């Protein structure tokens, strides 16, 4: 846990604690209060309820500001989860059904099973399965002339023409007779039938490849949708427009997010309540997005309360510094952690962090107790 001076932008003090619980927050803040002695003007925190409850107990009358960076992070994380859920339900499950369909068709041809028993949710895969059934029925005949005539009839049907893979199938079908010079005869049937099944599989592979290409575009679109309009280059805007043309249902997500980003750039009088965020929620929404939206609506007063403030030296300052928890100290700690040097005894840990952040670090008794720590100085 780390306390940072929001104006001077330097860490004041920190504590090595066993977790982000109310008790540990109380331990840290009580010692901090005794040490600093000066009254606090404002405390900026993230959306942790445990830090909030500890803070309200130690500093009951100090105004609390919810961090703007964490507010945006909360919503964008919810978005990422939601878009991943959409990708899974719309694209990955679809691709999976095509893969399963292909595997089952091979099992039928090997004689391992008689019919495809699959619960298919997508019209594409259902249609492909019905095409396979019809093809299988035709190819079960023994007479080459009947097969040929029935195939011609089958290709002329409206149902076959409506199948997305019919062009790919017909292309492969023509190749069988042009490249290999096969004609429908009793002798050639044993070569033609497997090739016809293969042509059907080529058709569904084509459909699956299309879906995979769409998935790749969606992966790009996901991050373009999340971008802050302020940080977008013309190239990003062009790409986003292309993606929204392919996935028009993403427009509502983008529109809502842009509106949310806009709230941080306008004065509090012009700001709209965050209720507009509920437009992106549905009964199937990811729980993270659901909870992010509700948390933001509950805390909106604490997020948008200061647009400018008076500094102790009575200068009006932009509020960004007090509205954002300084994450760079945490990044420094992460870098220190990555090197994994001198972090394997509490004494070393305390020394390294204290030296690196140039601030005093204390250790909570519960952490010592948890690690069964015995000081050599006792």
């Amino acid at each position, binding site marked *: 846990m780390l306390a940072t001076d929001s104006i*001077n932008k330097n860490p004041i*003090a920190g504590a090595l604690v066993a977790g982000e619980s109310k008790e540990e927050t109380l331990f840290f803040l009580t*010692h901090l209060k005794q*040490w600093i002695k000066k009254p606090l003007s404002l405390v900026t925190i993230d959306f942790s309820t445990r830090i909030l409850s500890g803070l309200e107990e130690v500093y009951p009358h100090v105004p609390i500001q919810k*961090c703007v960076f964490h507010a945006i992070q909360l919503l964008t994380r919810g978005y990422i989860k939601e878009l991943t859920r959409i990708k899974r339900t719309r694209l990955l499950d679809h691709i999976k059904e095509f893969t399963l369909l292909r595997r089952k068709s091979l099992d039928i041809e090997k004689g391992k099973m008689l019919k495809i028993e699959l619960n298919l949710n997508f019209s594409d895969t259902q249609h492909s399965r019905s095409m396979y059934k019809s093809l299988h029925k035709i190819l079960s005949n023994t007479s080459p002339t009947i097969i040929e005539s029935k195939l011609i009839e089958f290709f002329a049907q409206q149902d076959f023409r409506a199948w997305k893979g019919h062009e790919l199938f017909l292309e492969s079908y023509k190749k069988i007779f042009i490249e290999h010079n096969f004609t429908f005869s009793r002798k050639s049937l044993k070569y033609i039938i497997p090739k016809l099944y293969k042509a059907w599989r080529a058709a569904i592979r084509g459909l699956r490849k299309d879906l995979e290409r769409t998935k790749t575009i969606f992966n790009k679109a996901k991050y373009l949708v999340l971008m802050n309009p302020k940080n977008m280059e013309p190239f990003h805007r062009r790409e986003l427009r292309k993606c929204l043309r392919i996935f028009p249902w993403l427009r509502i997500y983008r529109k809502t997010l842009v509106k949310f980003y806009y709230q941080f750039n306008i004065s509090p009088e012009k700001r709209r309540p965050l209720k507009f965020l509920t437009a992106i929620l549905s009964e199937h929404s990811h729980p993270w997005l659901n909870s992010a939206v509700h948390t933001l609506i509950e805390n909106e007063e604490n997020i948008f309360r200061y647009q400018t403030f008076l*500094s102790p030296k009575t200068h009006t300052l932009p509020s960004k510094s007090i509205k954002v928890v300084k994450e760079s100290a945490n990044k420094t700690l992460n870098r220190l952690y990555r090197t994994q040097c001198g972090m394997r*005894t509490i004494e070393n840990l305390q020394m*390294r962090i204290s030296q690196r952040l140039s601030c005093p670090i*204390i250790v909570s008794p519960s952490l010592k107790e948890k690690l*069964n720590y015995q000081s050599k100085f006792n």
Partner: protein
Amino acid sequence: MKALNDRGVELEIREYSDADFFPERCPICNKRDIIRHTYKIRTIQDLGAPHLCRRIRYERVYFKCKACEKVFAIDHPLVGKNSKYMPGVIEYAATRVLDREDSIRRVTRDLNDLHHVEVSVGTVENWINECGEKGEIPEDFTEEDPPPNFSGFISVDGTFKSVKLKKNDLKTGQ
């Protein structure tokens, strides 16, 4: 300066002596009648460069007061007391480990390979512990001074890291 070995590393020897800071008065009786009594030569390692090895030939001089006949020595301003290394070497290692997030082993390797300072990991570890003021773990801020120029605006945040403690560490009772 002269060639040290086949790798083209040159040896630079500087000479420091306590005699350069000849004391004016005896620290015991405060008389001015001081003579040079005896001396001891010590070789001190200094921070070199990849092709330059630096050594200090330090003459530790013992002075004698003719009045009280006491023998005494002075502290050389550039050389550490009883140290085999120049203060710059220790400062370099401490800065790299404590401020630049480097590991003690890497710094020791660099000192040996690049700076031609023969030093062990244990010695560097001792320097770091001394410079980092490693000691008892504090449970409150009573020993620290309150932060200067505190603005009254603070932000509180936490970051989670799982830290593996040393196996069989006596201090952790594991």
